[in-house]
């Protein structure tokens, strides 16, 4: 007799679990060594508390009621609960705070989509270090952690969550017309994006910029391909690049000016982590300078999260291809 588990969840048996545990320990060791202390937050929180962090968390789909009729949600990421934790326990502490976590997160998925409803995230949050310096520290740590996990070909796609909005300002696209453009970009539908931009009847340079920017990705030379109208965001990206280059990580970086992350709280640098062995991002993160303020503790912050099971897949694939290379 089969006793089903909900779609998007699964059991883990000892052979796989042993590897997942070993991987988590290796990642954790890298985080601890860099001064990031591990924290634990509840898997369920009050919905109205988490909503302070993100008014419409896109995938926070699992809700329940407690015995007093309060709405509880299963956390859909670790960052908002940690912002709450910082406000609750470290209020008024000005020194930089370095925290890490290993925890399951939950989201709603469509039946048959093959996506995980429950997934294990390991990551770091750096609170109180603003700008490129903080961004670079977190990205370098993610790169190191993956190297420690045995990955050799991982790359980081680097962008800015506000870049396209800044560009919409600079090209003076009317407020009411922006949403359809951002939605097309969001759905990665560059055909619809171009059609909607064309419908605006903009001057040629503005049109070109809006169409081209989401397709710009590659080395530092891509930054030279757009003009000064989005200057500050680009200066920051350039600085992150320089700082990471000093740490010898330049060849891991891909500028990706069209990058968008699904969570709504990012205010600056965003990034995603890839490995050629795996067809989906292994993790990502970014800067969220506005989030802690929503919990009454305005401080700059940024973080990175890795999907441990996806990193494990990349690890297996690296092992396999390394074996082939040797043979």
């Amino acid at each position, binding site marked *: 007799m089969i006793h089903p588990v909900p779609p998007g969840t699964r059991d883990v048996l000892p052979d796989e679990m042993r590897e997942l545990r070993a991987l988590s320990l290796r990642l954790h060791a890298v985080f601890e060594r860099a001064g990031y202390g591990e924290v634990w937050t509840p898997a369920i929180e009050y919905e109205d508390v988490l909503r302070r962090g993100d008014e419409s968390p896109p995938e926070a789909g699992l809700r329940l009621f407690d015995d007093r009729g309060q709405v509880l949600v299963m956390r859909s990421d670790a960052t908002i609960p940690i912002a709450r934790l910082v406000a609750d326990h470290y209020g008024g502490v000005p020194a930089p705070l370095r925290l890490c976590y290993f925890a399951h997160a939950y989201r709603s998925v*469509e039946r048959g989509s093959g996506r995980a409803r429950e997934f294990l995230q390991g990551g770091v949050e750096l609170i109180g270090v603003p700008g490129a310096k903080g961004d670079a520290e977190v990205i370098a740590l993610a790169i190191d952690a993956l190297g420690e996990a045995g990955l050799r070909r991982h*790359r980081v796609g680097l962008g800015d969550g506000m870049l396209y909005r800044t560009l919409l300002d600079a090209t003076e696209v009317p407020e009411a017309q922006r949403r359809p453009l951002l939605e097309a970009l969001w759905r*990665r539908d*560059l*055909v619809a994006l171009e059609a909607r931009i064309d419908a605006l009847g903009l001057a040629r340079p503005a049109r070109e910029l809006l169409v081209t920017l989401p397709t710009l990705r590659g080395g530092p030379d891509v930054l030279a391909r757009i003009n000064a109208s989005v200057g500050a965001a680009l200066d920051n990206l350039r600085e992150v690049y320089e700082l990471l280059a000093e740490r010898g990580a330049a060849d891991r970086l*891909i500028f990706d000016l069209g990058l968008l992350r699904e969570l709504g709280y990012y205010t600056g640098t965003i990034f995603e982590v*890839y490995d*050629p062995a795996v*067809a989906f*991002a292994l993790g990502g993160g970014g800067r969220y300078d506005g989030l802690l303020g929503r919990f009454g503790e305005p401080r700059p912050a940024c973080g990175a999260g890795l999907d441990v099971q996806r990193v494990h897949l990349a690890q297996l694939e690296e092992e396999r291809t390394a074996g082939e290379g040797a043979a």
Partner: protein
Amino acid sequence: MTANGVVIAIPRGNLFAGTLDLIDGLGIRTDGIRANERKLVFEEEGVLTVRPSDVPTYVEQGAADLGITGKDVLLEQRDREIYELLDLAYGHCRMIVAARADADPLGEPLRRRGVVRVATKYPRVAAEHFAATGRQAEIVEVKGSVELAPVTGLADAIVDLTATGRTLEENGLVERELIAECTARLIANPVAHKLKAMEIDGVVARLRELK
């Protein structure tokens, strides 16, 4: 290494011939693909031939870096994590609501039963279209010969793809509403889009010239 440094999933079916003509222009040798109906993987050419509705799956999962399929397929599978890069402007079709020519099949059932029965291979597109236009619809999913549904009384109307309208006509159906114009599209895996940026941009530039 394949011709363009990428693997492309292309659709067997109505778009097949047009797609092969197009990728000839990418320097991919298609004579072997044209000659062999049963073989599905052409490693040397970097081509997979799959069902049109499976193209997004192969691309999303990374079995192919790029894919070509109809916009109808992409509309139905809207939450796939893929890039839609280019309108290839061939394989033009219309996604439509059609019903029998001899009655008022949308008005009458809606007024008296409160709901219209719609047969389709595109349940999601159909449901969204009727919801967006404020009508309640009961969607009946069928796998083929959708035109049969109104004729046999299985449904009041259909949502389907039509190129010439000939099949509709032969079954006594007429187009009532246009939902979307559909053409072939180039799609990409999001990770390949970053890690093989140069190769993919090369293909996109060539296809922009060719289309």
